[in-house]
């Protein structure tokens, strides 16, 4: 029922997976375990994924909630144009990034989580979703003159409303002119 936007969920997953990958990488390098080069790679890859996924995309329908301070990231990600807009690219990119993480124990979990995120991105791409940047709306303020009602045409003293109303039998004697023609029997 209704359009589910899978990309939003994939975005949350990819951000979390990036953080997990980053943490695993830091642990791996700090302990200089066997295969710590993979851990160093995981730090870089995790940081990259976090930066790419931090700006949330715009929803198709409804209000989009931004993450705090995401505007500068939005600008950076937007500047890559179709590469970052297309979710197929993101899906394959995440799949490629996650593979080296599987070679070291500390980064295995990050690899698995990023793999799941890449699958969901693939699903979103197949459904035709795209990343739209959330840009601040230029607030259009109504000109003050339009909201104030038109000032009266006649100078004071003004006759009461019954006198002012145009009577059908005496169209010429009225104090104003209709922009649209009216007939006597029109309600």
């Amino acid at each position, binding site marked *: *029922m*209704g*359009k*589910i*936007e*899978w990309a*939003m*969920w994939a975005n*949350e*997953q990819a951000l*979390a*997976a990036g953080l997990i990958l980053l943490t695993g990488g830091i*642990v791996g390098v700090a302990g200089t*375990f066997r295969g710590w080069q993979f851990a160093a790679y995981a730090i870089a890859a995790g940081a990259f994924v976090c930066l790419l996924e931090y700006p*949330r995309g715009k*929803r198709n329908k*409804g209000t989009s*909630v931004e993450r705090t301070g995401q505007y500068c990231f939005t600008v950076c990600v937007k500047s890559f144009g179709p590469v970052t807009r297309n979710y197929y690219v993101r899906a394959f990119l995440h799949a490629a990034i996650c593979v080296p993480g599987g070679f070291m*124990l*500390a980064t*295995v*979990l990050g690899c*698995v*989580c990023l793999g*799941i995120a890449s699958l969901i991105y693939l699903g979103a791409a197949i459904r035709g979703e795209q990343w739209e940047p959330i840009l601040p709306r230029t607030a259009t303020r109504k000109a003050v003159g339009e*909201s104030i009602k038109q000032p009266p045409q006649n100078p004071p003293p003004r006759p009461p409303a019954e006198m002012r109303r145009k009577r059908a039998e005496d169209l010429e004697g009225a104090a104003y002119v209709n922009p649209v023609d009216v007939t006597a029997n029109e309600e």
Partner: protein
Amino acid sequence: MVLSFKSWVANEGGKHFVLVLWLGANTWLFLRTFLTYSTGQQYYYLYKMLGLGLCISRASASVLNLNCSLVLLPMCRSLLTCLRGTHTVSSRRTRRLLDKSKTFHVVCGVAICIFSVVHVSAHLVNIVNFSAGYSEDLPGLNLARYRGEDPRMIILTTVPGVTGVILVVILFLMFTASSYCIRVSNYEIFWYTHNLFIVFYIILMLHMVGGALKYQSNVDAHPPGCLSANQSSPVLQGEELETGSDEERRCKEEARFHPHYPQTWMWVSGPLCLYCAERFYRYIRSSDPVTIVTVIRHPCDVIEVRMLKRDFKAHPGQYIVLNCPGVSSFENHPFTLTTCPTEEKETFGIHLRIVGDWTERFTELLLPKPGVESEILPMVQQRRYPKLCVDGPFGSSSEEVFNYEVSLCVAGGIGVTPFACVLHALLDGWRQFRLRRLYFVWVCRELQSFYWFSELLCALHHKLWQENRPDYLNLKLFVSQTEDLQSMSEEKYRPLSSRLSIGRPRWKLLFDEIGNANKHKRVGVFCCGPKGISRTLHRLCNSSRYTGVTFEFNKESFS
């Protein structure tokens, strides 16, 4: 705004007390398990092999056990409604804690995530140590099959390893789908992933099968640190051998190790059975058919649906959950009741605002397109209404309106629905309530919205005037959009138009007025509306401006 201690305790004290209790329980459990594993005699050899990772992983596991059992309890909504409604929990302060059940669930969930991270990290270190510290002396203790076995192979070939990976994946899916953003925009993702909890719990109960961590079962016969028959004491080399103590320290037999009996099921099975029973009960209760009696279209995209169901009892302020198979088989949407069934009239009703695709589709099934029929007339029973399942009623904080002497109800837009039910109860089903004065503030964006309940408000106002209780209901209506001059021109709605103000309400002045008129009383503040209003009201309730009056804040979460 300066915080007042008395107001803060009245509003926030209960919640924080429960939080402190919960934190204390978690801390005690963590420390107790940590100390057991670091100083216990039966874990001496295991601790030597694995080190600190053993203690941290087991301690976090016991905290996870506690939180996995607690996290289910706040979600047993029918049970909580019973506790609230039958006044089994007699103190109002304790009943107010039930309002925060969803928050408690979230807190336990976050704790589960954090401690899972700790647990997994510690166990990864354990696996590395199992592999690197393979002990030839104590073969029974090893998890690895040989020294230096690849830790990833250990994970994939043991039951705890495989179940652990599956649990982490499920937890990852559940956690990432639970953020506020996803719940607001794509509620189905949240709902379906959260229903994976049953898989999570079943696998959790199987997680300890296979026993990776073993304790020593013959501590008396083989005190840890004793010397085996062919070992000489390294400390006493070169010193006088004291044969007496040396004999005592010889082992009588080899150390024997036994895997742990899985304990998680003891923690988790009770709440899990309770929750499953509750879901089953709700399913049975909602399968009873509901007859739609009338459907009325109101201005500003609101329709009113009146229904009839056998054996349906509800109190003002409760809400129901609708499921319409004709629209979507699995979606359930909560709506507050605006009319409760009474002895005279058995129908109950909801007002729903058409926003989102479920409500749009539901309205299409109920009503013809606008323009074909006149808007306010009720439908003639030519139409076949869709099948509707109603689950509920469930309790909410607005049930407490009658339990205060003075209540302030603030409604924003469609948030007026719980209070509409309260007003209906005052109009039709008058009993000796504890409530002596009701301040009703309704803020809407458009003037047309007030027509949803204009009849009800005028009828109640009229009735109270006739009974010479004009100060019982203090009505204030606000229209927040100030662009066009608006007024309710009908003569019969004169009580409303004379109490209508243009522009947003000024809450401080309102609270001053209520505080001055009701000194030395406890005023219940009920808010159902946008976050901005509820935050402002919450802050005002906690502030110290009003001497002698305590404002107790109750928020209805309208998600």
